[in-house]
């Protein structure tokens, strides 16, 4: 454990599905006073996230290498448990401890954000001296899906692909794995993206109070709140569907139930988590694996379409292009 150097300053993990406000919440945590690691290693910005993704490149590379070492689909139900076992093995433990030591060297709370982190919580639980403080974002999955398609495919294809069923499955797997782990970590907060943009003052204050209670204050409350509020630009709230998630025909009852569960937790209505309520449909793994495969092969074959550096860092296998 990375505990020998005295009480560690505290790790914050921002979790949630892709395109669900995780970057915004990570930025809020940074503005609150957590440090995200070497700014030069925070990856690229792009037009979808002009202020950045707040994802530490060496951390993402470690996650990718762990998945490649397992040679197991991220979407295999055994993945979280299998990857957790690697925390006790060399060289993974040494690499993980070096990363954590680097983050702790600043002596202040630090923050990591990466949507796939939800699948790796068991791994980090074995490496960190204390469980991370987790902030989970929740956004209406079909809105996040539109954003995801736009971020993942060339313009002409993104207009034709729906991928709501795909994304909702991805969201369900990530959030269910996250919630299962959070049963062991009392220090977590669920933040609804829509509430954050509709009631920024209230939600930022809620976030500040949550972090201060766990990690102490980083600055004067008013000053801190003002800095954080500046990060929220409702103009960046794209992909708002008119149709409620619960009215979508292709969404299954357990998925609607999961969103309801998360929304209640985001409204500070504690509710026990029972994974059996949120069962996956039988085709879920096939579709999740196939989409990753198609996208990988398309990027190798399609003129004008390449995986971004961020995508390549996150791909759990050697890309078709590399191969």
């Amino acid at each position, binding site marked *: 454990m990375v505990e020998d150097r005295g009480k560690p300053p505290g790790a914050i993990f921002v979790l949630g599905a892709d395109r669900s406000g995780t970057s915004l919440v990570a930025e809020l945590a940074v503005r609150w006073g957590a440090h995200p690691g070497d700014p030069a290693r925070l990856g690229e910005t792009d037009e979808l996230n002009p202020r950045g993704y707040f994802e530490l490149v060496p951390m993402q590379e470690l996650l990718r290498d762990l998945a490649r070492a397992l040679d197991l689909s991220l979407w295999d139900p055994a993945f979280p448990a299998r990857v957790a076992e690697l925390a006790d093995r060399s060289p993974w433990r040494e690499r993980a401890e070096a990363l954590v030591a680097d983050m702790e060297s600043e002596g202040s709370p630090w923050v990591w954000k990466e949507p796939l982190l939800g699948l790796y919580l068991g791994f980090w639980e074995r490496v960190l001296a204390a469980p991370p403080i987790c902030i989970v974002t929740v956004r209406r999955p079909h809105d996040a899906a539109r954003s995801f398609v736009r971020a993942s495919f060339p313009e002409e294809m993104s207009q034709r692909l729906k991928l709501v069923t795909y994304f909702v499955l991805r969201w369900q797997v990530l959030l269910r794995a996250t919630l299962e782990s959070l049963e062991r970590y009392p220090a977590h907060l669920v933040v609804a993206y829509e509430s954050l943009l509709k009631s920024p003052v209230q939600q930022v204050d809620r976030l500040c109070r949550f972090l201060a209670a766990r990690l102490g204050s980083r600055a004067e409350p008013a000053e801190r709140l003002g800095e954080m509020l500046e990060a929220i630009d409702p103009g960046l709230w794209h992909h708002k569907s008119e149709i409620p998630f619960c009215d979508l025909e292709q969404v*299954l009852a357990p998925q609607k139930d999961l969103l309801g569960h998360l929304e209640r937790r985001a409204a500070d209505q504690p509710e026990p988590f029972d994974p059996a309520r949120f069962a996956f449909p039988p085709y879920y*793994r096939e579709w999740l694996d*196939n989409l990753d495969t198609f*996208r990988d*092969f398309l990027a190798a074959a399609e003129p004008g379409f390449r995986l971004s550096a961020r995508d390549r860092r996150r791909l759990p296998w050697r890309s078709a292009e590399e*191969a």
Partner: protein
Amino acid sequence: VRLRPILVLGVERSGTSVVSDLIHRWGADAGDLSRHVASDDHNPQGYFEYLPMQSFLHDVLVSTHGSLWDPGFAGRMERLALDPRYRDRAQALIAEMEAAGRPWLWKDPLLSLEMPFWERFLPTPVCVVTVRNPNDSGRSFARMNFPEPLRRRVRTNSYFAFRWQFTMLAVLDYLERNPDHLFVRYERLLEDPAGQVARLGHFLDTRLAAGDGAEDRLAQMLAAVQPGLWRNRSGASFFDLPEVIAEQKELLCYLDRRASDDPEPFERARYPLPPYVVEYLEDFNLLAQRLHRLEPAGPDLPRRRQRAEAALAEA
């Protein structure tokens, strides 16, 4: 002998080609054989797909400006049948087939989904429907349509089971309006060729009032059944696959009973398609087609379409 058409229906890679071969050997005219899709490793005895008909099926599909899997597809087909441009082409194709003066045969997997169009022009076809373990058909389908190394990575158990369920429900919907049909179980045909060929021959003889020579016809037909071509046997039962849903298992049981001449009524409500199926099929196809630089009908059609176009251009 009556001049009725014989249509072979069923999902891809479920024995539609071998059954077409049997019907052809029975005596049905399959059109000018030089204008058929050429045989290949996947179907060494031929596809029995008549290129002008196939090309037209494809044009009809494209003209609906929609997805094959969309619930509104059947309605669009029916409307298209009223369009004189398509009506005239359909009638010309039928007239071409009738010119031989004997029962004639069409087979193409797309026919199963386009029957709402053809019903207007073919009021009383005789139909033969093939049933095979969908898992084996799916393996064959993947082998045929996904080149290495993609084939090693793409998984098709769910995809093909949904494609099969969708197709067979469309066939069963149509057969509710057409009592002249026979279900043939592919596995039984290869395990008991004599019994199944006799059953098919008897069905065709009675429906189409064939005359003497039944024994000769059966002998001709039997020669087409090559158990050596029974490939892509997964060894796994369809019922044991985790991706297969209860309704699909029940549908296979139902089709199996129909192939055993059990005249059980069809109740569509027992085999509902899950609500996410259409989107999965559409997105999967779009991505697969993009990879193959294919056209909008399904991963398999473009390859055939290319063959069709090349052959027609030569002709």
